[in-house]
């Protein structure tokens, strides 16, 4: 009976997509039958090392093949959950850790990897990143991608022209820099509001710097009225101060990040600063290598006077994780685990990651990272930041259950648009905690 209801539910939810027309077709041939292990993976630059590793693996192990299908980021996010729910998941399930990994584990959709892979992971992966793959002390996901914290990027030339000699270290210095840049007629801070998620990085860092990592920890735990912490209120007030000071020009709401227009504005000297994930760095290089080498600088998020958070705390994405579907056949599971055992930040993986511009979260790799570093020292900066961070908070939209994540994005956008007050934000968000 249960399965009948579920089948009906799956049909019904897919039926909602019918009038939505050409939103993409359902992936075919990815069911759990057949002997090849299957994998869905992004088609972006960051996953190239793992895609190459799979190709190599298939050449070396023709009897343990892994067949992979590539997807665009958003398409993948929307597809994977229904695929798992309807039993059509690939053998290797990719995630960002956080709430979705916990959901999959709680539902028994993915298998416990503690016995097979814990030793490999604990030996190689940086603790803060490895931790993202654990649910209740058991290993459910192994990271395979670069580490991706959010940080502030600067256009040195625009800052200099405005009379700002060094990157702001405190919130007050940031406000001064904003005013100085504004006086020159340039945009102080680029913000890709059209994509919504860039708003989150500001909120996450401000809450951390003001109240420390415990504030969001309580929210993540779902404590009653956890959003009422004064740090949240102060962070939202500071955000609105920044908006009112004109830090983000007048058209930031229509700027989107997926097409990299935000990065372009920094490169073409239109704006002075931008907060972005470290994944934006390859785009700076691709757009203008000379700019990335000589004119780009970067720094941690500024501290807030009287705040409890450590200046070295990070937020952003930890990495991407592979989990193994419990619906896959035993051979598929075994083959996938074999692949992970041999390829979790293997030497070839690490060097190929550094070549494509992502920083591997691997223990004792400072020398390797340094050797591959670019002129600006970006790789070493990220590697050190990730190794030394006392707290590394996963992006809010990944850390929270999906319904709360959507509510945060929606309400935070209204805070930036000055449509709701900080207090209304707190009240609306408290309602989402059950």
């Amino acid at each position, binding site marked *: 009976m249960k399965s009948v209801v579920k089948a009906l539910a799956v049909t019904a939810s897919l039926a909602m997509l019918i*009038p939505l027309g050409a939103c993409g077709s359902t992936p075919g041939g990815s069911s759990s039958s057949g002997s090849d292990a299957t994998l869905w993976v992004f088609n972006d630059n960051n996953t190239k090392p793992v895609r190459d590793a799979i190709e190599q693996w298939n050449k070396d192990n023709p009897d343990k093949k892994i067949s992979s299908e590539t997807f665009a980021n958003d398409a993948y996010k929307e597809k994977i959950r229904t695929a798992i729910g309807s039993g059509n998941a690939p053998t290797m399930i990719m995630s960002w850790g956080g709430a979705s990994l916990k*959901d999959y584990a709680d539902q028994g959709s993915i298998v416990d990897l503690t016995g097979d892979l814990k030793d490999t992971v604990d030996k190689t992966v940086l603790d803060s990143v490895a931790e993202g793959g654990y649910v209740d002390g058991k290993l459910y996901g192994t990271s395979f991608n670069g580490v991706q914290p959010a940080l502030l990027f600067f256009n040195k030339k625009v800052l200099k022209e405005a009379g700002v000699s060094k990157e702001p270290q405190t919130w007050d210095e940031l406000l001064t820099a904003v005013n100085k840049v504004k006086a020159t007629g340039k945009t102080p801070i680029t913000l890709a509001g059209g994509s919504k998620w860039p708003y989150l990085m500001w909120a996450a860092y401000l809450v951390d710097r003001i109240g420390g990592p415990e504030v969001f920890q309580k929210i993540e735990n779902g404590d009653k009225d956890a959003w009422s912490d004064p740090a949240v209120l102060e962070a939202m007030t500071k955000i609105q101060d920044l908006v009112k000071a004109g830090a983000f020009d007048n058209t930031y709401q229509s700027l989107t990040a997926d097409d990299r227009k935000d990065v372009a504005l920094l490169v073409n000297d239109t704006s002075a600063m931008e907060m972005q994930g470290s994944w934006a760095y390859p785009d700076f290089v691709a757009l203008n290598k000379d700019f990335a080498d000589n004119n780009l600088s970067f720094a941690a998020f500024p501290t807030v006077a009287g705040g409890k958070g450590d200046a070295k705390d990070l937020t952003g994405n930890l990495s991407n994780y592979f989990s193994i579907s419990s619906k896959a056949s035993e051979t598929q599971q075994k083959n996938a685990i074999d692949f992970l055992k041999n390829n979790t930040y293997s030497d070839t993986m690490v060097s190929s990651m550094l070549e494509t511009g992502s920083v591997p979260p691997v223990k004792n790799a400072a020398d390797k990272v340094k050797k591959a570093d670019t002129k600006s020292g970006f790789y070493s900066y990220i590697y050190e930041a990730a190794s030394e961070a006392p707290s590394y908070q996963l992006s809010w939209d990944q850390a929270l259950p999906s319904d709360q994540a959507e509510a945060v994005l929606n309400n935070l956008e209204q805070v930036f648009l000055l449509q709701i007050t900080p207090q209304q934000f707190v009240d609306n968000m408290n309602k989402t905690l059950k």
Partner: protein
Amino acid sequence: MTEMKTKAGRRSRASRSRGGSGSAALRKGPSLWYAAPAMILFGIFALIPLVGVVVLSFMNWDGLGAVTWNGLGNWKAMLSDPLTLNGLKLTLILTLACWAVQTPVSILLGVFMAGKQKYRAFLAVFFFLPLLFSSTAVAIAFKNLLDPQFGIGKAFGWKWLEQNFLGDPKTALWVLILVVSWCFVPLHSLLYQGAVRQIPASLYEAARIDGAGTVRQFFSITLPQLKYTFATDSTLMIVGSLTYFDLVYVMTSGGPGNATRIMPLDMYIKGFKSYDMGGASVIGVLILAMGIVISLLLNKLSGADKMESQMEGV
């Protein structure tokens, strides 16, 4: 020459069918089995999922775990959610505005394309083009053209175009309405063009003999003769706008704030971003109910259920 031939052909075909309609076999119509393939497809792809959506609206399901009964919980939650009301309001505005913009333009273009003016066929090709483009491509193109930092305004230095069209909650919906209309006017003018061509030339000849000018002919003959096409076309437009999704999703995804979060988009976000399938189903059922009520109402108002020939005596 060809013209005369076709006209004569049309008349003879018309008289033939009029003569045939008297036979008993035709009045009874073909066997109902003819409808079976359509009904089976409709049942599998429309009715069964529809029942599923209605059932699901009383359930809790996050797309992953077990499906559990929730009674009226989803309905209460959705009906008290300000986003639902906001979506309903925006959908109604979008529907009405799209109808109000598209109808007059489509009628005028349709009448123009049905005529015999110079360059008509050539121009008609251009009017028809937007219908051939995929709506995602149209959305991405418009989004980039209207971009205040990189768009057409910046490129040519036209200050009036260098506006925050899609980023300002006050203008975003209206820009969408214009783009949607741009996409669908060709389809509707095609319908009107066909309808105008059906009007017998003798009506215009008679009017001309009575001394009616072009404008008078348009209002006294063309418009009244388009009555049923108007009813059909309005139903198409309104039901289409009620469920409209793709352009809005690609251009604004509901933003800025919730300024363009129309009901179908709200349903999509609830279902596939928040993974609240129960809540999304409630909104789906609401859209469905609205669609049915409005099309029945339109049918009633236009008297389409007792459509009679407008050509008696011609």
